[in-house]
């Protein structure tokens, strides 16, 4: 028998009807078997990869007795799915790894505002939606990495400075299709304006050692093996490689240094993006959904993010990833995350126009 794990839920049996059984048997006969309906459950659409969310969901199930159902996928596809499913969407929670997508979801009308005293207390102002449609769960910093044997930290200062001609032929970046790059450029549009940002992208492109390629891990490897001297990447990839016992990863940990960008007195700080969650407008399990989000903000979950995926917690007082701590404290860009979402489209256009493939 096929297990069609559909969310064919009978959520409100207003008036039991004789014919209901015949409908059910029709559905069963057509190959859709109704899943056993748990007393309480919550359905999650997650752009976070299964490996980076499932363990915490399992812990939540254990602790609360609420069953959690999960689909992972790309944020845009899941968002699209939320939109077309509309008021009957089975999803209760939408999780992304980028504030811009949460903002887009809010604008698309698939989220609803929610607030609890606990969440309000835990999540800082700049890491949540201004209208309480979504909250950050973890932070990731995107900064500059350099080859220790060719570059000294003194030569580096800011993202902006990477467009200077002294870096000609020395920089690697990944493609502009990547959301982290889009988000970085979006933040620069907010600070420096569109025109200056486009000039910057052009300058950066002129400095590339080779066309954009790969993922952040590849970029770090490229720096370690001498393909280029400097790159921009998310720190958690570096943290992961530091922990690995793979020889190549160890080489990266040994040869590559972290530089916290834009730390000058007057400057804005390192670009941060977040993973976050919102509750869908169609949610029928809102209480459980809030419980789950509270759990993901608990000490246990926040510590887990730091330990397992080297991300920075959003909740004050939770220790940052241990192996990244050695690179010292840094100031983070406190730009409103909503702006990242607003500027995303323009960022892509600028990158297209300036030839960032």
């Amino acid at each position, binding site marked *: 028998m096929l297990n069609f794990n559909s969310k064919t839920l009978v959520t409100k049996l207003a008036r039991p009807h004789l014919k209901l059984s015949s409908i059910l048997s029709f559905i069963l006969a057509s190959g859709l078997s109704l899943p056993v309906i748990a007393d309480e459950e919550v359905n999650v659409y997650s752009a976070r990869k299964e490996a980076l969310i499932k363990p915490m969901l399992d812990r939540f199930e254990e602790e609360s007795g609420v069953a959690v159902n999960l689909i992972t996928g790309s944020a845009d596809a899941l968002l699209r799915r939320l939109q077309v499913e509309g008021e009957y969407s089975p999803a209760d929670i939408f999780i992304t790894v980028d504030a811009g997508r949460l903002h887009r979801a809010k604008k698309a009308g698939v989220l609803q505002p929610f607030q609890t005293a606990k969440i309000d207390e835990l999540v800082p102002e700049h890491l949540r939606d201004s209208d309480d449609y979504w909250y950050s769960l973890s932070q990731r910093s995107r900064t500059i990495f350099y080859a220790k044997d060719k570059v000294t930290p003194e030569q580096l200062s800011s993202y902006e400075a990477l467009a200077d001609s002294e870096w000609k032929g020395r920089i690697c970046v990944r493609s502009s299709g990547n959301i982290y790059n889009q988000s970085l450029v979006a933040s620069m549009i907010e600070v420096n304006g569109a025109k200056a940002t486009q000039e910057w992208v052009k300058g950066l492109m002129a400095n590339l050692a080779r066309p954009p390629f790969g993922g952040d891990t590849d970029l770090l490897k490229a720096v370690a093996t001498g393909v280029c001297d400097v790159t921009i990447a998310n720190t958690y990839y570096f943290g992961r490689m530091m922990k690995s016992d793979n020889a190549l990863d160890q080489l990266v940990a040994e040869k590559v240094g972290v530089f916290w960008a834009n730390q000058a007195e007057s400057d804005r700080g390192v670009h941060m993006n977040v993973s976050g969650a919102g509750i869908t407008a169609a949610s029928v399990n809102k209480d459980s959904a809030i419980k789950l989000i509270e759990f993901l903000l608990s000490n246990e979950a926040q510590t887990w993010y730091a330990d397992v995926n080297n991300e920075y917690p959003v909740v004050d007082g939770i220790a940052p990833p241990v192996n990244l701590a050695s690179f010292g404290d840094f100031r983070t860009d406190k730009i409103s995350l909503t702006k990242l979402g607003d500027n995303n489209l323009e960022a*892509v256009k600028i990158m297209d126009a300036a030839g960032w*493939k």
Partner: protein
Amino acid sequence: MMLDLAKRMTLFRPNWLMLISVAVALLLALPVLVILTNVLTGQANVWQHLIDTVLTDYISSSLLLMLGVGAGSLLLGVPTAWLTSVCRFPGHKWLAWALLLPLAVPAYIIAYTYTGLLDFAGPVQTLIRDLTGLSYGEYWFFEVRSLPGAIVMLSLVLYPYVYLMSRAAFLEQSANTLEVSRSLGYSHTRSFFKLALPLARPAIVAGVTLALMETLADYGTVKYFGVASFTTGIMRTFNGFGDAAAASQLASVLLLFVTCLILLERYSRRRISYHSSGIRKASNRKIELNKKQGVLAALVCFLPVFLGFIVPGLQLTYWAIFSSEGIDSSFIQLAWNSLYLAALAALIAVVLALILAYASRLNKRKAVQASVTVAGLGYALPGTIIAIGIIIPFAWLDHKIIAWVQEVFEVRFGLILSGTLFALLFAYTVRFMAVSLGAVQSGLGKITPSLDAAGRSLGYKPMDVLRKIHLPLMKSSVLTALLIVFVDVLKELPATLILRPFNFNTLAVRAFELASDERLADAAPASLMIVLVGLVPVILLSRSIGSGQAH
């Protein structure tokens, strides 16, 4: 004359079949149509922006990619097919089936493995640096992550389509034809170019068309290699701009490419008679190669197997052994999910293909012929686009059903169609109909209308004729269709990712999630499993082709 008879063939009064086939085709074309209607709703400025900046890039890379993969798959597929079907050399028997093995390797996985192997950080270049003392940039090395790299990767896993089709064609060519040409003073080589190749041309073109459609639809490889092809462009527009309409517009341009491909393929078949001769003269006469030629032939045939299967297989195995992600019990569930999904999809695709193929055989009306073409369009669209094209109408239908149920029974239901395996199976069918249809139609083409008429005049009803004559004669092409769709579904990723129900994963999803999180080694066990599960049908396929020669 034969064509005439085919036209007048009245196995059934075929009106109901025609209706069904048009309905099936419309259903399968639904996602494509949904995408096309989206075209009209786009924001003009986004489209203008694309034209101003990246569109030419997308077009030129996609064209280069097609050109390259076309040439590559021909180069790998045709000579090996000819050698294994008409020559005798050491190992020709096992090479004949081993040449299909790369079919089991998904393109994105071979891309990962070769990147791991040949990239600047990989063992090969590290070894070069260690040995020579040079650093990166001071020596030349093939850049894997590039357009040429993508061409090589795609060619290595897509050539089996060309091999499969052209080998079948070479096997059908009677040895007599070739002997006649030799008696007229043609060498083996000249006979090959003057006779064997032109005769096999329709089959070869069909194979290349399949390979090129796969190339156009490929997303994993080009994205990983940073090639700005049409599919990466569509996804980038969809994701970056959040603009489904502009993405649809790009997808429509892609569809234009595909339509051209299909027309080109038709054109190449225009002078080939509708039915090949009913009975082919089996011949076991093969060209005996001398020792030197034999070794060379074996090498030529071994190379694609080595590069397309053995190397990535070994790399995956190595990673799997040393990865942190071991093969645990959850893998059994994943493998089972992949397996039954693929089997079910294959079954559906082949049944529908049979309906369409029979309708087009019995009814030469334009509507039927057009529906067969339309039904195959989905093959070249990236899975994501198809998935989007499916959830829109499904959700709409769901909403209607729910509203009705609510009104009549005062019961609130969840979604019935979207988010179920039904939607997923539908997506697979749309995506792989062309493959299934191709195999089934080529099989059906070999059954002449007289065979039907003979059955009828000997006292059999149409259904009995199907059972007693068509079924046994179609067996091998139906099996081929089943197996190819099975393997394709096993490898399919983007549509699965979007449409799968809650808590439902497949091997491909697992492999992708880990690989896209840049954990290649951890992705290896799942990848290896895909290859292994896919190997079973591929081997079956090879064997069925081999035994197709029995009488």
